[in-house]
């Protein structure tokens, strides 16, 4: 076959396809190297640490101990068997539960609210550009700043929210929103939803603007009422964009750290996987133990994302839907 085609033997006789792949490789190489240095290497190190007894003041002196940080079976001299390690640590499972609860509730609320905001912004009205810019403000404020800001607003003594709720007669006495176990999660959720809804709205808006206008006009002529148009036409058409938006948010939510660290430090009601593993890594001098928890966090994320992509048939390649 090849002999019959007088190939122009340049570039070592590579075919056009091979040349293209070679060029693509060189363009991608810097990115791959950067990704390896900032993502793959730390990740591999963490996994390695989790299998050793490394401590914070002796990072390179760790010895291999296998899976003892995850689960270790101890048989005491009197014959009782005891399990140790992060997999049987109630604090860890509390954190996992907190994280999941936080992620699901916040992402669901943000998606619904974001979609509503996006639908409003997608309508044509005067000053739409201004409103679009304004709605992004919560997203633009650094989390630390907005967390501190809300911490003050939620403050039990001086907080404006307590003051307003009290004056309106909604509550009978001041509530320590962030310190009370019952309300801490709500406080965190509220701030996160406030902050991230604009981001969701913007992603939804981008999806909405992909829907051609004349499809709506065809629906108008078909005489389909707006609610049905939303559920039968708009929603199916923006579903791919929505699924990608949700997974981005979900990944973010499962790793939540900064907001909780600032707003409700040391509250068992809101402690998440990231918070607890940092605690172990840095504060409790259980570096390897914390590494094990970080590794588990990564594993949970990976499983979750795979399931989501598989079950939701999410198209991350951007090729479908054409």
């Amino acid at each position, binding site marked *: 076959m090849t002999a019959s085609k007088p190939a122009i033997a340049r570039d070592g006789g590579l075919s056009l396809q091979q040349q293209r792949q070679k060029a693509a490789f060189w363009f991608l190489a810097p990115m791959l190297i950067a990704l390896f240095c900032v993502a793959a290497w730390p990740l591999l190190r963490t996994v390695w640490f989790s299998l050793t007894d490394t401590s914070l003041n002796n990072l390179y002196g760790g010895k291999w101990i296998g899976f003892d940080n995850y689960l270790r079976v101890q048989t005491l001299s009197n014959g009782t068997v005891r399990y140790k390690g992060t997999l049987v640590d109630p604090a860890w499972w509390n954190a996992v539960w907190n994280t999941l609860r936080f992620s699901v509730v916040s992402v669901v609320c943000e998606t619904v609210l974001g979609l509503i905001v996006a639908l409003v912004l997608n309508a044509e009205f005067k000053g739409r550009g201004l409103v679009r810019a304004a709605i992004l403000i919560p997203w633009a404020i650094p989390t630390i700043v907005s967390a501190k800001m809300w911490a003050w607003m939620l403050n039990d003594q001086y907080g404006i929210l307590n003051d307003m709720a009290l004056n309106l007669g909604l509550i009978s006495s001041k509530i320590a929103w962030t310190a009370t176990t019952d309300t801490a999660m709500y406080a965190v959720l509220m701030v996160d939803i406030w902050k991230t809804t604009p981001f969701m709205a913007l992603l939804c808006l981008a999806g909405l603007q992909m829907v*051609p206008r*004349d*499809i709506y*006009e*065809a629906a*108008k*002529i*078909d*005489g*389909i*009422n707006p609610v*049905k148009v939303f559920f*039968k*036409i708009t929603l*199916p*058409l923006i579903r791919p964009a929505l699924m990608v938006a949700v997974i981005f948010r979900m990944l973010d939510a499962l790793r939540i750290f900064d907001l909780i660290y600032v707003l409700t430090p040391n509250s068992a009601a809101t402690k998440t996987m990231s918070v607890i593993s940092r605690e172990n890594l840095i504060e409790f001098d259980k570096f390897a133990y914390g590494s094990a928890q970080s590794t588990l966090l990564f594993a949970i994320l990976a499983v979750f994302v795979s399931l989501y992509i598989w079950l939701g048939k999410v198209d991350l390649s951007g090729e479908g*839907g*054409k």
Partner: protein
Amino acid sequence: MAKIELKNVKKSYGAVDVIKGIDLTIEKGEFMVFVGPSGCGKSTLLRLISGLEEISSGDMLFDSERVNNVLPSQRGIAMVFQSYALYPHMSVYDNMAFGMKLAKASPEAMKKRVLEAAKLLQIDHLLERLPKQLSGGQRQRVAIGRAIVRDPRVFLFDEPLSNLDAALRVQTRLEIAKLHHSMSDVTMIYVTHDQVEAMTLADRIAVLRDGRLEQVGTPAELYERPNSIFVAGFIGSPKMNFLTGKFAADHGCTTLGIRSEHIDVVTGGMWTGQIVHAEDLGSDNYLFVEVGSDEPLIVRQEGKLTMKVGDTVSLSPKDGQLHRFDQNGKPIR
């Protein structure tokens, strides 16, 4: 099924007047074509009739009933869009049945109607496919099928063929003509900027220019008795030849118009000039003859050509085929 009357209909977007007062009656069962150059307001006028846009002033009547404030879905219209506007996530069947389904039609009636329409358009083997799995021509037929299923009083088409290639355009044009014959009591309004489509499909043509009606009439009327230079130049292919200056003054007008097929090559004719270019279309030849006017005269010659580029020929218009226009572009008759 509907007689449509437009009475001094105007439309403006903010300060921009797009439709500047149109009076037009479209008879029941008529095939009316709107033509005009790009941006003259054809689509806008169609959308006003459909109800997708609200008219700014004037009246619109369907069968003598004022429909100014009637919703598109209540007007008994169906529309075929230039971009097809199919629902991308629904199968061909669902696309066609969607309106009926949500109107809670009985499943049997719905199925019957959809299948009938699909048969008529020869898309009954495609019913399970998604729009993205269809060719352009098939998509357009699905869009037409969806319109048929609505069983409308008025069919509206906005440049339905402009996304198709030349061969498919001719074929689909034929199908639309057949459709018009098989649904002879349905009024059809068709927008195009292609005057061949207009001439071949229309019962009557409305030529629009800059938001106003320039002339309304049958294709033959427009071709033979254009009411202005604009219509004379717009209808017909190749474009009518226009002569000015002394050529026109000889005939007592400002502009003299003559169609290419109305010029004979003779000896000792009215005009002489050199052939600067020739186009051979097989059945016809078009000679471009430089007679000293602004542009060369285009002359149609049937059959085999005995002349070649560079030859000097003498030309004469056929009797009674000269169009004379005054300085306002109006015909002198």
